[in-house]
């Protein structure tokens, strides 16, 4: 199919793949990008929030023509009880700035735009083509790929694996292991369409302002999980995700959780009367620092979700994807500029540069969080949210009970659900993991 030889082949056209292909092409490398979807974006799923800073480093003037939905001025965290939530809201007019920091986006549209930039930068993008195999030489060096279009092998000096969270090619070639059920979450999401003014009324927004709700608690039925509600211009992205291992153990179904989340009395009024136009599901890397696989080898690097680069605590996936794609491209460019071969020892530069960036520093900071939250899911996602909601009800409901007795009741509900030692232990462990 393609007889030429390329400097680099990028497998996948998601955030990481597009960032890598764009950065490589703008540096003058001869790039082939392969995508199995009809177009870049047609297989990609995200909440989705875009962090401006990381994209600015790749395309500084992206605001001029990128399809952005709303800039975020409000963040809500909801701790969910069965029929209540206790919330923390942060809203600031400071976010109504000339160059806002965060936007909601719709991936199918955004990725299409990003990929157009990749093509304009000079990369050859071939869609509707699934890479079926990595081609390795007798020494195991990756020298190219095979696709389902037939026509044999396509060769390149380096293959950038931006193949997404499940990472079929890399795992099959033995470059890394398939992610464990404890290290990935399954999220399901629906797109709820409503008139723009209805969304703005319900979320107290004006113009292009947007709000985000992230919710945890009884909605995940004791599993490690989270719900989210993001405002787009004319629709609301609503979803919920839990660890695959928890789904496996509990026998809960993702769509059942989603329906319950939608029917929660705090959520239902927000989406009332909406028209659902899509139902999607996606895996999210949740293993953190300790789940990061080998990132480079002879003739290859791995970026984005395939490298399990996601900061689950701050909900940053796509910006780590973009940044790792950009950094991989810079490392490859440096090796090439020195006219050196794409060997593991030379491509180790990618890992070093990643370690010097916020990507690895942040993941390292939270390296113990996944273990803590995943093992103690009953406490952190069920017991504590229930207790906090009960305490709030105790606090706000005036019924003639003396306040001192109310406080005693609240304390008692905490200590009977979880011993003092348990409470202090969890607080200590959480603080230590956060450090």
């Amino acid at each position, binding site marked *: 199919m393609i007889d030429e030889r390329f400097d680099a082949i990028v497998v996948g056209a998601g955030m990481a793949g597009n960032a890598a292909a764009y950065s490589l092409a703008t540096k003058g490398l001869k790039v082939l990008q392969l995508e199995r979807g009809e177009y870049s974006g047609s297989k990609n799923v995200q909440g989705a929030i875009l962090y401006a800073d990381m994209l600015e480093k790749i395309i500084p003037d992206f605001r001029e023509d990128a399809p952005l939905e709303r800039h975020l001025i409000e963040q809500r965290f909801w701790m969910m009880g069965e029929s209540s939530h206790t919330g923390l809201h942060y809203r600031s007019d400071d976010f109504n700035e000339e160059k806002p920091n965060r936007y909601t986006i719709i991936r*199918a*549209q955004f990725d299409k735009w990003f990929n157009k930039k990749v093509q304009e930068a000079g990369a050859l993008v071939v*869609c509707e*083509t699934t890479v079926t195999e990595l081609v390795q030489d007798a020494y195991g060096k990756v020298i190219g790929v095979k696709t389902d279009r037939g026509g044999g092998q396509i060769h390149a000096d380096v293959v950038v694996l931006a193949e997404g969270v499940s990472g079929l090619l890399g795992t099959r070639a033995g470059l890394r292991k398939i992610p464990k*059920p404890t290290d990935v979450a399954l999220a399901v999401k629906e797109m709820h369409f409503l008139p723009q003014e209805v969304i703005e009324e319900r979320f107290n927004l004006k113009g292009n302002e947007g709000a985000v709700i992230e919710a945890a608690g009884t909605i995940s039925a004791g599993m490690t999980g989270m719900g989210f509600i993001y405002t787009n211009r004319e629709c609301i992205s609503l979803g919920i995700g839990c660890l695959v291992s928890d*789904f496996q153990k509990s026998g809960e179904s993702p769509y059942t959780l989603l329906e319950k989340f939608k029917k929660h009395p705090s959520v239902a009024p927000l989406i009332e009367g909406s028209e659902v136009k899509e139902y999607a599901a996606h895996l999210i890397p949740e293993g953190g620092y300790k789940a990061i696989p080998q990132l480079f080898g002879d003739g290859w690097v791995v970026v984005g979700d395939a490298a399990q680069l996601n900061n689950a605590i701050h909900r940053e996936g796509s910006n780590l994807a973009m940044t790792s794609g950009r950094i991989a491209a810079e490392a490859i460019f440096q090796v090439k500029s020195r006219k050196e071969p794409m060997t593991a020892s030379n491509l180790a530069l990618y890992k070093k540069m990643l370690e010097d960036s916020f990507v690895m520093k942040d993941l390292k900071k939270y390296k113990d969080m996944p273990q803590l939250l995943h093992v103690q899911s009953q406490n952190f996602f069920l017991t504590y949210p229930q207790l906090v909601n009960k305490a709030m009800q105790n606090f706000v409901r005036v019924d003639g009970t003396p306040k001192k007795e109310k406080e005693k009741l609240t304390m008692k509900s905490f200590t009977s659900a979880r011993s003092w030692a348990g409470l202090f232990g969890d607080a200590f462990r959480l603080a230590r993991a956060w450090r």
Partner: protein
Amino acid sequence: MATETAVRVEDKLFQNRYLVDAGRAHIKVRPHNEPTPALKALLTACPARCYELNDKGQVEITADGCVECGTCRIIGEPSGDIEWNYPRGGYGVLFKFG
């Protein structure tokens, strides 16, 4: 176990766009008499409910509504219970929004 609810997954999938590669299922279940725990987990964990029990009590897959999340690969591939591939280029789910 979760209680059976009246969630109709097929209604959800009906909103989606697909290009089905007829006769070329991208996921296959290993023939078996008794389903393994991993296969049983797929009955509830698959977000598109592609896995169902047949009348012999075996787990079967109909991958037409698959949203290509990869959950069944994570659960079922290491034990060899399922074989998982990407659909051919251009086929499968075509997200309008993602």
